[in-house]
C-alpha cells in the first residue's frame, strides 16, 4: 500500500491541529506546570472525548470508530507538536490497545465504554528498573482460589496518579500475563514523580494485591505475543509523538534562523548553520517515513510490524536527541531560558526517548531480530 496518509487520515490530522492549537497550545502546558505540575486540563480531555479520539482505535463491535493506528498516530504527532498534556498516551495508546488485543470478551464489553467516554482512565504498569525491557519481570501474580495475588513494584507509570485502572504486567508461573487492577485496591502504594517534562508519573508498589481472575486480559492468548503486540503499538505511538516534537522544534528553529540578526545579518545566512539545518531536515524526512510505515504495519497486521516499531523508536530517539540539542544551540542564549518554549521540546523529548526503550535498546533489538 502507498506510504502516504489517506484523505480521511489527513482530515483527522487537520482537526487535531485545529483543536490543539486553539485549546492546548504550549502556553497551556506552561500554565499546568506553573500550577503545581497539574497533570492535564480536564476540559481539554473532554474535548478530546467529544472529538472521538478516545474511540479511535476501539473496534466497531464495541461501538468504537475502528479508525486505526495511523489515525491515532496523526493525533499523537500533533500533541507532540503542541506538547499538549492529556491521558491520550496512557489511557488510549496503552490502555485501549491492551484491551483491544485482549481475548477477555467480558472485560472488553465492560471497560471500553468508560474508556471511550473518558470517565475511566487506564494506564500501563510494566517497567521495573531504570530502563525499559520486556524480558524479565519480578512482579508476580499467584493464583489463590478465584483470585490472583500480585506482589512487586513498577515505575515510570504514566499518569499513574490520576488513572483509576492499572494494567499490570506480571509473571504467572513462567508466563507473562496482564491484569486490570483497580487503583484503589488495598495493598497498592502510589508515589508521584514529576519528571523533566513536567509530567506526572508514578512508582507503584503492589503488596498482596488481590485481583479477580476475571481481570486477566489474556486468557488463551500467549502473554509473550500479547506483550510484543502491545509494545509494537507503544513504540510506534511514542515515535509518532516524537515526530511531532522533532518537526515543531525544527520549525521553530528555522523560523528563529530567519529572524535573528547578529553582525548585521540574519543568522540564517550563515552557511555552517544552513548545513546543520539541512541535516536536521534530512533526518526528519527519514523519521516521517518510518513512523508512517510502523503505524501502517499495525493496521495491516504486517508480520514485520514489531521490526518497524523498533526501527521507528530507534530512529526517532536518535533524531529527537539531535534535533532538540541543535535547536537549543541554534537559538543561542535565549534557548536556555525558561521564557523560550524551545527548552520544553528538549525536556519532553528526553522523557519520550526513555519511555518504552531508548535508542540503544531498540538498536540492540533490531540486531537481535536480524540474528547478529
Amino acid at each position: 500500500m502507498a506510504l502516504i496518509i489517506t484523505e480521511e487520515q489527513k482530515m483527522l490530522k487537520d482537526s487535531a491541529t485545529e483543536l490543539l492549537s486553539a485549546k492546548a497550545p504550549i502556553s497551556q502546558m506552561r500554565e499546568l506546570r506553573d500550577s503545581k505540575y497539574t497533570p492535564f486540563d480536564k476540559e481539554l480531555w473532554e474535548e478530546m472525548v467529544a472529538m472521538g479520539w478516545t474511540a479511535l482505535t476501539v473496534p466497531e463491535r464495541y461501538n468504537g470508530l475502528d479508525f486505526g493506528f495511523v489515525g491515532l498516530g496523526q493525533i499523537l504527532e500533533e500533541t507532540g507538536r503542541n506538547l499538549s498534556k492529556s491521558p491520550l498516551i496512557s489511557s488510549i495508546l496503552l490502555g485501549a490497545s491492551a484491551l483491544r488485543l485482549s481475548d477477555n470478551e467480558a472485560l472488553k464489553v465492560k471497560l471500553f465504554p468508560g474508556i471511550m467516554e473518558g470517565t475511566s482512565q487506564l494506564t500501563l504498569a510494566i517497567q521495573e528498573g531504570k530502563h525499559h525491557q520486556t524480558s524479565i519481570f519480578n512482579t508476580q501474580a499467584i493464583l489463590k482460589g478465584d483470585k490472583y495475588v500480585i506482589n512487586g513494584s513498577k515505575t515510570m507509570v504514566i499518569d499513574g496518579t490520576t488513572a483509576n485502572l492499572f494494567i499490570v504486567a506480571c509473571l504467572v508461573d513462567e508466563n507473562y500475563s496482564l491484569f486490570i487492577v483497580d487503583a484503589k485496591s488495598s495493598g497498592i502504594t502510589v508515589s508521584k514523580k514529576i519528571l523533566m517534562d513536567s509530567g506526572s508519573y508514578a512508582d507503584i508498589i503492589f503488596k498482596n494485591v488481590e485481583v479477580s481472575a476475571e481481570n486477566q486480559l489474556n486468557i488463551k492468548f500467549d502473554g509473550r505475543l500479547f506483550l510484543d503486540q502491545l509494545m509494537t503499538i507503544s513504540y510506534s505511538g511514542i515515535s509518532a509523538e516524537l515526530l511531532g516534537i522533532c518537526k515543531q522544534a525544527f520549525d521553530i528553529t528555522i523560523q528563529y534562523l530567519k529572524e535573528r540578526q547578529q553582525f548585521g545579518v540574519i543568522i540564517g545566512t550563515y552557511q555552517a548553520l544552513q548545513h546543520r539545518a539541512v541535516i536536521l531536515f534530512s533526518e526528519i524526512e527519514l523519521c516521517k517515513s518510518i513512523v508512517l510505515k510502523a503505524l501502517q504495519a499495525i493496521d495491516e497486521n504486517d508480520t514485520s510490524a514489531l521490526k518497524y516499531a523498533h526501527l521507528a523508536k530507534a530512529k526517532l530517539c536518535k533524531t529527537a536527541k539531535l534535533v532538540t540539542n541543535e535547536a537549543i544551540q541554534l537559538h543561542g542564549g535565549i534557548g536556555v531560558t525558561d521564557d523560550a518554549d524551545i527548552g520544553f521540546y528538549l525536556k519532553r523529548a528526553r522523557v519520550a526517548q526513555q519511555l518504552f526503550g531508548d535508542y540503544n535498546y531498540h538498536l540492540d533489538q533490531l540486531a537481535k531480530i536480524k540474528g547478529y
Partner: protein
Amino acid sequence: METKISVSLSDFRTETRAWLEANCPESMRQPVKDPFDLFWGGRNAKFNSEDQRLWFERMLEKKWVVPYWEAKYGGGGLTSDENNILTQEMTRLGCRKPLYSFGISMLGPALLNFASEDQKLHYLPQIVEGKIWWCQGYSEPNAGSDLASLQTKAIDKGDHYEITGSKVWTSYADKSDWIFCLVRTDFNATKHNGISFILIDMTSKGVSTRPIKLISGKSPFCETFFDGVKVPKENLIGNLNEGWTIAKYLLTHERQMIGGIGETDVKKEVHTTALEKLSLNSSGAISDGVLRNQISDFEMDEEIFDLTIQRVTDEAKTGNNSGALSSFFKFYGTELNIARHELLMSIGGSEALFWGENEKKDGDLARKFCRSKGNSIEGGTSEIQLNIISKLILGLPTK
C-alpha cells in the same frame, strides 16, 4: 486493507513475466561483474556474447529498450503503471538492461523537453536502437561545483559554431560517438544566461580525449578537449543562451540516479556479510560490539531511506513534490553508500585491504571503497546539495 488492481494491469504483469522468462537468456539475468561487460551500443557496437545480442535484439523488437517513450520516437508507449510493472518484473528476474546509455537516461529527457520535433524524430530513435554512444560534457577544471562559470566557448561563425575549451568527468568520452555539451555562447551576459546546450560529433576535427585515473584505479572518466571544432548550428538544442535551464533539469535527473532512486540492484545486507566473516559470541551476536552497533545503525538508516524513497514517490503521485528533494536523495543516498563501504572495509579487516597488481581482477572491495568516495562529489557535491535544500526547501536566506 484492500488494494484495487485493474484487471488489465494484472494481465499485463502476467504476460510480461511470461515473455521475460521466455526471452531473457539465463546469462542476462546474472549480476554484472565488470562494467565493461555491459552493452553500450554505438557506431562500433560490439556484443560481448551471443546472449547479449539476442537479449538486445529481442527487447528492441518488443519496443522495450525504452518502454516508456512514445512509439513515434522508438519507444514502447507504455503507461507509467505498465512501465513500473515491467521494471518490477525485470528486477524480480534479475534481468539486465538490454542497453546502457546516457542517451536514454540523460539526453533523451532533455530532448523530449527542449528539442524541436525534428530533432526528436532524428535523435531519439537512434538512441533506442543503440546506434550512437552518447557522453556528457558539463564540468570543466575550474567549473565544478560552480558549473555555471564554464568557459568552453562556442563562437558564431555564420553557418556553424567554432568550439574551443575542455571538459572533465566526461564518462566514456574515449569510446563515445557524440557528446552533449554545455558551452558559453554569450560572454557578456551574467554567467547563467550565456550558456547553450549543443550536440557534437566526437569524430569532428579538433576533438581529443585523455582518460582520468581515479584513486580506485582506471575509470571511464576522461578529459575532453575542443580545439576550434566546427559544429553545425542545427545541433543546438533549445534556445540560444538558455542552456542553463536544460542543465538544471538534467542535473536533477542525474542526482536522482546517483542517489539511488530507480536503482534496481538488490544490495546484499551488510549484516549478512558480517555474519559470514566475523566471529560471534556465545549468544550469537557479532563479537565486535562496536561494529555490531555501527551495522545496526547503518541498516536502520538504509532501510528507512528506502522507505523514504517510497514515501516521496507515493506523495509525488498525489502531486506533492519538490524538485529540490532530489538533492536530499542525492546527498543522503551517497552518504549511505559511503558508509556502507566503510563498514564492509571494517568487516573485512586486513583482508579487505587487498589491492593487488591486477586492476581488473584484484582488490574489488578496496577499489569499490575508494570509488565510493567520489559519490558525494560527482553529480554535484554534497555541499552543493545542502545549499540547494537550504535555499529551496528550508527557505533560508542568502547574503
